[in-house]
């Protein structure tokens, strides 16, 4: 059982750097929470505060409604997997996994049993006598996981545990970590800057930037309903396209207007925009929300000249130069386009995003 609560938590480092600002967050028991954000945004700092490796400079950190601001790491019942794995180099794999239990004076037979169980689950039984230096990156990763697993902690912390693995291994390990979460039935807090990892693993994602939380929500919320341009841009590949324009209400509906583009906004969106006539807005279109085959009406089509074609295996990305904006769209790879072609794409109007032009806050969510 572990529910973790941040109440207005602050982190200031000794040099005065304000790494985490006014963080308020509720992590549910048995939840898989992912902290996502660019490098230096304070993800590791937040995780280290949960672990007790960094002091909390302000606010309250609670485990199951108990203040843990001043509780040392070993009394918090947390286990952690580090990006560098942090395996003890002179200890065998067995002793690496067993160390946390040995320190807690668990009896030998029990240690032996738990280590072997974990090793079996992770398929590293044959490696138990080796030293970390004799293992591959993927094997080390498993040992690090094993070390955390045998502790049977109530909170499982991971700081970019997959970032040192190659692409194929990373994807298969994602599945294993997800399985691990299901079988362990504990709270997981997972740090990554990889959006795909976050979207696959998380029950909820916390998107951070410069020490500030930009949005908290399910992967669906974060991807489909970004609350600001930062979150919208951080997820999606290629990134979301922006076009600046104005809102215009006419008749029963509303339109997005740009000098070369007029899009009729659907009912669902218009309903959220009452009183916004004439507002300067930033339109967001996700790269995959266009279709070349379907003929959109005049109020649902964007025209442009192709200035780059980037095949990416299953699909291709078309780059447009659209009145000073560089737009990228994802289209089927069977469409043969060359640089210089004029192309019309119909836009999926129901999936448009609208943000305030100045603040970047979403007008829809």
């Amino acid at each position: 059982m572990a529910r973790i609560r941040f109440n207005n938590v602050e982190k200031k480092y000794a040099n005065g750097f304000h790494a985490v600002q006014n963080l308020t967050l509720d992590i549910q028991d048995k939840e898989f929470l992912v902290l996502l954000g660019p490098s230096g945004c304070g993800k590791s700092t937040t995780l280290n505060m949960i672990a007790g490796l960094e002091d909390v400079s302000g606010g309250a950190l609670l485990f199951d409604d108990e203040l843990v601001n001043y509780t040392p790491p070993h009394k918090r019942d947390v286990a952690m997997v580090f990006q560098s794995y942090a395996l003890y180099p002179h200890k065998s794999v067995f002793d690496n996994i067993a160390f946390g239990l040995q320190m807690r004076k668990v009896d030998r037979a029990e240690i032996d049993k738990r280590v072997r169980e974990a090793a079996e689950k992770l398929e590293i039984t044959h490696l138990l006598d080796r030293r970390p230096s004799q293992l591959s990156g993927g094997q080390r990763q498993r040992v690090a996981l094993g070390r955390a697993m045998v502790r049977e902690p109530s909170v499982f912390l991971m700081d970019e545990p997959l970032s040192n693995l190659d692409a194929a291994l990373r994807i298969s390990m994602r599945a294993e970590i997800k399985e691990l979460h299901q079988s362990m039935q504990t709270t997981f807090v997972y740090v990554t800057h990889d959006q795909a990892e976050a979207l696959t693993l998380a029950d909820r994602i916390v998107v951070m930037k410069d020490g500030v939380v930009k949005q908290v929500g399910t992967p669906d919320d974060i991807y489909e309903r970004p609350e600001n341009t930062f979150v919208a841009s951080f997820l999606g590949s290629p990134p979301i396209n922006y076009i600046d324009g104005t809102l215009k209400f006419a008749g029963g509906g509303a339109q997005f207007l740009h000098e070369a583009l007029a899009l009729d906004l659907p009912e669902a969106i218009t309903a959220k925009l009452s009183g916004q006539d004439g507002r300067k807005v930033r339109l967001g279109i996700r790269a995959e929300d266009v279709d070349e085959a379907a003929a959109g009406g005049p109020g649902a089509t964007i025209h442009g000249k192709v200035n780059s074609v980037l095949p990416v295996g299953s699909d291709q990305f078309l780059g447009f130069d659209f009145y000073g904006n560089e737009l990228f769209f994802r289209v089927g790879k069977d469409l043969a386009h060359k640089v210089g072609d004029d192309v019309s794409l119909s836009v999926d109007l129901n999936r448009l995003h609208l943000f305030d032009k100045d603040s970047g806050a979403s007008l829809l969510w």
Partner: protein
Amino acid sequence: MTDTVNIQPGRSRLRAAFGYEERSAMIFLAPVMLVLMLVAVFPILYSLYLSFFRIKLTRPNRTPFVWLDNYTDLFGNELFWTSVARTVVFSVVSVSAIAVIALLVSLLLNQDFRFRRVLSTIILVPWAIPYVANALMWKWIYDSGYGALNGLLFQLDFISRYMVFLGDQNKTIYLIANAFVWKEVPLATILLLVSLKAIPSDLYAAARVDGATVWSRFVHVTLPAMKPGFLLVMIYETMMAIRHFDLFFILTEGGPGDASHVLSWHIYVETFRNLSFGSGAAMSYVLALVTFALSYIFIRTLGRRV
């Protein structure tokens, strides 16, 4: 046909055995190797050769070949065994003190505190002092008439009159060891500090999460990581201690009595005071072999799982 193929059989065999790079390396290394032969290898072999003769400069014309007599005489000589015992005491005391002090100092310097840089620089000073200067300095510190140590102890009221420190048979060797330790600690500290700095901070974080106390972290993370550094310190300092000469020469000349009559001093006396070059060379050989054997043992025992 065949006789035209092997015009220069020697050369082609050389070519076959070594690649182009090895052959050019040999050419470039040759001058250095030649110098090394002259200044190192030749004296080593020549002194081995000398150790098989009875050479006394007081009898320059009678230098009979005595085969291993110099060696067998040595092992029958009581003073030789005394000097071995003194050397063992000096080395064990010095090396243990150096290892412990260097460990503590390196742990201190690995912490973050305000005057760390200044302190690191100050601690390095003894390293920069030549052995002879160090010996002269300690001679002055231990002096019975105007020595700094006497002055200090007297003013602090620990002693009521000036003492002849180096005249005390039971203390001399330790006082000399103290001077030696003072000189050697800086280098040992640096060697240990290097291995300390190389420990990733994640390891300490992992150990903290694993529930390790400060002491367990030291035992399970710090000490194992320092093992290579320790190995180096032990080998190097043991070699330095076993062969050390300057302090004994300047402070006590082996005295009082035979209280500081160590092996290196014994060799010096035999060779340059008794002018007995043959047996001096034999002893030097024994010393060299012992040094070699000790470092081998260190590497085997300490280095096994580094």
